[in-house]
């Protein structure tokens, strides 16, 4: 039985992967969902996690550098895809021009300093030259999960969220979205590290890199590593 800390945004896919994994081998995996910052602090203070699936690359790197993670175990398990999404049909055009016309009151993003999707959103807006113009209309969620809720509840007309989130809705909201071209932001690499020496954990991370998991990850709306 192993414990794996997983970034909240990857929860859906992680559950499916665990299901397959457990069907395949005689191990059990307990997932602890949470924000990557919190997980990091907990790991530093001795949390009994065997593996860590972070929302970014920075915290795994830190752990590896400080010797809290098995060196060399770090790898990118998924690549986030940023979308500009609205719960209103037709508000967001496939070219993202809505950002120029600006017929909205609030644009939701994740925290640009703390959350990888927030950082990516800022890069996009900067690249488009809209960062300063839209600064007053930005509402920031702590993480991309909150940014998504701002939009889904209709309080923010649109926002930069993760494609995986939109996929997960499976059409229960007929919104509109713009797949942000990947050249507008630096890659959102979600990295995993091994924290303990346990074989089951190694096995799980191996499975995470495998084709079967990759399939699930893609299907959930992430880019392959």
């Amino acid at each position, binding site marked *: 039985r192993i414990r794996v800390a997983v970034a909240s945004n990857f929860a859906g896919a992680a559950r499916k992967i665990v299901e397959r994994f457990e069907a395949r081998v005689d191990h059990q995996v307990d997932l602890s969902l949470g924000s990557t910052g919190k997980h990091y602090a907990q790991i530093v203070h001795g949390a009994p996690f065997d593996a860590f699936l972070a929302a970014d690359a920075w915290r795994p790197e*830190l752990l590896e550098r400080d010797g809290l993670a098995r060196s060399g175990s770090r790898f990118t398990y998924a690549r986030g895809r940023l979308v500009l999404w609205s719960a209103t049909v037709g508000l967001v055009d496939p070219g993202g021009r809505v950002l120029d016309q600006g017929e909205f009151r609030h644009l939701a993003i994740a925290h640009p300093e703390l959350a990888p999707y927030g950082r990516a959103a800022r890069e996009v807006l900067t690249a488009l030259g809209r960062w300063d113009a839209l600064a007053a209309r930005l509402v920031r969620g*702590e993480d991309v999960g*909150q940014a998504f809720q701002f939009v889904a*509840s209709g309080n923010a007309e649109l926002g930069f969220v993760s494609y995986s989130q939109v996929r997960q809705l499976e059409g229960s909201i007929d919104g509109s979205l713009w797949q942000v071209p990947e050249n507008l932001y630096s890659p959102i690499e979600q990295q995993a590290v091994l924290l303990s020496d346990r074989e089951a954990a190694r096995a799980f991370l191996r499975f995470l890199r495998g084709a079967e998991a990759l399939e699930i990850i893609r299907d959930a709306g992430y880019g392959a590593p």
Partner: protein
Amino acid sequence: MPTGADLTALGVTLKLAALATTVLLLLGTPLAWWLSRTRWRFKFVLEAVVALPLVLPPTVLGFYLLIAFGPHGPLGKLMAAVGGPPLAFSFSGLLVGSVIYSMPFVVQPLQDAFAAVGRRPLEVAATLRASPIDRFFSVAVPLARPGFLTATVLGFAHTVGEFGVVLMIGGNIPGETQVLSIALYDHVEGLEYGHAHWLSGGLLLTSFLMLIAVYGLNRRFRVLRP
């Protein structure tokens, strides 16, 4: 050292806590008074409703408030109908959220304090020609003083530290909805521990001094009960 953003957040926090405490007392006092006096058979249902928001995790409460505030939510529609400001991502929204969440900490102590006043002093005041309003302010409120102190301290402190609800419905807009608790949280999340310690220390010290002032002052006015 605190950044300018921290100071702005402090300003918003103090404003929010002060306003929320005021609104809590303004709404909670009549409610607590009524609850302490009524013989309505089903008042215990209302008592339960007041305490209910407490059992939801603040972020989840915030989530539902967000839905309620949204264009399709009941509160959102209401505000739109009366031409009020939108509640999500606004200071007013924070205020509403904080008030709902901290309400039991104000109502319960006040209700207990009003009940402890008893009927007699109010009857005496009535025979001395004090109208119901008059005797409420001249007798019930001063005698329920300890309850007001408790309600104020708990309401204020809880609003200062309150976090999940505010995080969810505020949108973390500097100067408007970014409060100190969020700033502090961000420092911890961003591994800026030095900064976080500094801010926590400052917050604790300030609060400590405020609490000491409140409790210390109160000592001098305490009503003696034989």
